[in-house]
């Protein structure tokens, strides 16, 4: 490829864009607020005397800055984003429109409850749908994300065990689990005991049964698991876990495969979080905000964190405090965050649910599973699958197909970028070598999937025909090329600083 150097630093539509600190002037502002005279300040001794050093941009500069930055991002709205376990589905714009209604966006969380009945109704309606879809009686709405939901679930389980007099010591986590699972259990004071996977990509049931004992507080299992496979022994596992006096926590990150098809509450699960930003289409926003409500049994619900919404003849109330000592009905563990949860995310998720209805929700999981299996069926001879199907909403490839090619999973992923695709989730789960966890979601048309499949077939053929150099160099068509991550970690530069000025006398 010919290296093209331009005079401006821009390359056609790819604009070089300096940091705001390199273009903003401290005296400039893009907002017109009047200068007010402070006659009677009540700030006191802690009033600011020094400059902060913040640059300002006028509105045209700021708009151009952020539009230019946006154009350096891949996005669902640009193309297929098969990032496994992240469920990068289409984010309907109606959700955004509804969330911006002043009746939802311009209300304060501590307004008198009589003035926010519609907001409480919205939360309660969503809660009813989520409980109904999962087959549980209770729900904690406040967790802010999936990992926060896990924390809520494990805290609730621990509170329930403590109420019985023994918090226990160990939590069993499969070796294929998301990293958040062991990190969460550790935050709740538990020791993590990893359970191996078997040759079919499922949890090794015999090993699990052997590890169960009177000191086990809970098992955390993802179903479908991170290999994209349904844990078929789940009902038996639940029975064994309960017989040992432990609780069954399910990581609901992959609920998109099951929504409308099966209710986890029917399978013996005690608690599960739902990532509203995955299954229920709220935008991922470059890394949040999400929401992670936790559905649970009525038994656990008594211990769930505050607050929660209740409905009575007089309308809706949000319960923010326990009634008092010794009241077993209100034995809720404390608050995990401020206010009532990710209300703006709830509005979007409820809008999505109402758009689909229960018939449409079932179609979501069916099409998601159909798309993943279609990719698997058409690529299994070109790439390599460590486990046989059928798959759920995602398919796991390993790097066996790259054996002897000098191309790694990372190289293959980077070549996908030059082809206009976001790579799959790579090197996760850890239970197979060089994983490429591929989740197309139900949003992709057959035409889109066919083009993706043909591209991956061609790339696999390139890899096998000795074109390793192309993969090693990829990506070349991006605003920047492969970045030096070692340098970033060894000499961390986490903020902009002005260029060193000549030493000046203080």
């Amino acid at each position, binding site marked *: 490829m010919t290296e093209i150097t331009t005079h401006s630093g821009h390359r056609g539509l790819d604009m070089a864009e300096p940091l705001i600190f390199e273009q903003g002037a401290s005296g400039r502002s893009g907002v017109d*607020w009047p200068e007010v005279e402070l006659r009677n300040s009540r700030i006191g001794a802690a009033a600011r005397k020094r400059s902060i050093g913040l640059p300002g941009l006028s509105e045209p500069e700021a708009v151009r800055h952020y539009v230019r930055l946006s154009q350096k*991002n891949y996005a669902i709205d640009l193309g297929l984003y098969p990032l496994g376990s992240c469920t990068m589905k289409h984010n309907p714009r109606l959700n955004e429109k509804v969330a911006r209604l002043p009746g939802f966006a311009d209300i304060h969380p501590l307004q008198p409850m009589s003035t926010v009945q519609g907001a409480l109704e919205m939360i309660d309606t969503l809660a009813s749908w989520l409980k109904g879809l999962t087959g549980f009686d209770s729900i904690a709405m406040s967790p802010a994300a999936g990992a926060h939901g896990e924390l809520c679930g494990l805290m609730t389980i621990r509170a329930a065990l403590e109420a019985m007099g023994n918090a226990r010591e160990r939590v069993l986590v499969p070796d294929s689990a998301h990293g958040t699972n062991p990190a969460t259990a550790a935050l709740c004071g538990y020791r993590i005991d990893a359970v191996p996977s078997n040759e079919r990509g499922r949890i090794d049931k015999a090993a699990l049964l052997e590890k169960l004992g009177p000191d086990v507080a809970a098992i955390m299992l993802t179903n479908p698991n991170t290999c994209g496979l349904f844990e078929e022994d789940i009902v038996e596992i639940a029975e064994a876990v309960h017989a040992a006096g432990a609780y069954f926590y399910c990581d609901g990150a992959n609920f998109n495969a099951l929504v409308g098809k099966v209710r986890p509450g029917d399978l013996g699960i005690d608690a599960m979080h739902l990532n509203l930003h995955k299954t229920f289409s709220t935008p991922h926003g470059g890394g949040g905000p999400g929401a992670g409500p936790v559905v649970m049994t009525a038994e656990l619900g008594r211990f769930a964190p505050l607050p929660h919404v209740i409905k009575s003849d007089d309308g809706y109330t949000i319960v923010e405090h326990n009634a008092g000592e010794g009241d077993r009905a209100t034995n809720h563990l404390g608050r995990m965050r401020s206010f009532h949860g990710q209300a703006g995310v709830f509005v979007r998720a409820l809008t999505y649910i109402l758009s689909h209805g229960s018939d449409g929700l079932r179609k979501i999981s069916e099409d998601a599973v*159909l798309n993943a299996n279609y990719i698997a069926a058409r690529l299994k001879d070109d790439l390599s699958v460590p486990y046989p199907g059928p798959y759920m909403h995602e398919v796991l490839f390993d790097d066996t197909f790259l054996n002897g090619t000098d191309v790694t999973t990372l190289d293959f992923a980077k070549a996908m970028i030059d082809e206009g695709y976001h790579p799959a989730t790579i090197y996760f789960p850890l239970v197979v070598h060089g994983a490429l966890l591929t989740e197309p979601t139900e949003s992709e048309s057959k035409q889109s999937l066919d083009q993706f499949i043909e591209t991956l077939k061609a790339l696999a053929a390139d890899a096998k025909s000795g074109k390793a150099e192309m993969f090693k160099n990829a990506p070349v068509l991006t605003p920047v090329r492969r970045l030096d991550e070692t340098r970033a970690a060894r000499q961390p530069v986490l903020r902009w600083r002005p260029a060193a000025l000549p030493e000046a006398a203080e």
Partner: protein
Amino acid sequence: MRYLPHTETERGEMLAAIGVAHIDELFAGVPTGSMPRELFGPSTHKGEAEVERIMSAMAAKNTTAGSVPFFLGGGAYRHHIPAAVDHLIQRSEFLTSYTPYQPEISQGTLQMLFEFQTQVALLTGMDAANASMYDGASACAEAVMMANRVTRRKKAILSGGLHPQYREATVTQSHYTEFEVHAAPQNPLEAEDLAALIDDQTSCVVVQNPDFFGRIKDLKKIAGACHALGALLIVAVAEVVSLGALASPGEMGADIVIGEGQSLGNPLGFGGPYLGLFAARSKFVRQMPGRLCGETVDQDGARGFVLTLSTREQHIRREKATSNICTNSGLCALAFSIHLTLLGEVGLTRLARLNHANAVKLADRVDGIGGAEVINDTFFNEFTLRLPQPAEQVANELTARGVLGGIPVSRLYPGEAALENLLLVTATELTMEDDIEALAGALNRVLA
């Protein structure tokens, strides 16, 4: 269904390519039998117009802050959001991307995060900030756990002026992660001597500035007391606009600063999603929770940004991670950053002054009405009014008169007799003279 592209013909072709006759064969092994066919009755999918009608009807049942004289704060503030902010955060490439795991196609998000981290570090007077947390309360709990790791101690002291929900979130976490919390009494009418509570087992002292009751403190003395005994000072900032008028926590000796960033760029939104801010001195960076974006170069030597120091994080360290956080508040951080970029230092300073000037006007106007008394010597845009009767009752009567007049402290501290008559009242740049007169008039009648 408008979000699902396949026709039935295509579904059939795809099933054939897979080699199955029916979709249910792909769910073999999944016990689908117990799922009712018609959950919630024969509900079917709905068109945009119908869904919008249902949701709009719910929204219409709420009294919006913008429709009445409005004086609520308490950790959530109503500020003007420049039109460009909401337009820009809805750019597809920001809205519909995920955590920047592939930096070559995520430089937009990464550069924005680098700018955000720098803005937060400058505002708080810290060396470094992370890419955001869920909200102020959860950031507070994480900051205490970080201080415990840094000092290898397990006892935190919380000021009585800390937001009660930040305090509750920290107390909740302490029970599970097994550390001690000493929460000082919350009565703003009594003096607080935090320094006397610090001992050689104390990992940190957490103070809020301005505090929950609106008071502003010079923190240099408490910082000195912490450092003398090897403890860290954690400063919480629930109203980030105040940093346009106040000395930064770093300047006053803070080691870790956490905050709620909602005030810039993010609507009230009934309490979420909000934006947890988290900043610290550079020597503690490797103990920080959350994502960090760092500068580096690409293979051609061009500047670029990546997520870095990930060996702290759950996806690498699993149970040994500094936190379990994964998704944070990326889009809220973007809104914050755009708003602050538009303001610049000049705009932020003017905005802060305007807030303070309006609050001074409000305080001067309501002080003394019907026996109401402003208890603050100092405040920024929020202060506490001591009423001659329970504040909840007064707030409800004000509501009946069409004024959202403040937050009864008893909503957050129920059953505390000493706090029962306290009302938190806030003015921002959106508070107009008419609003102030409406509150004064209504208070006059309610307290008559």
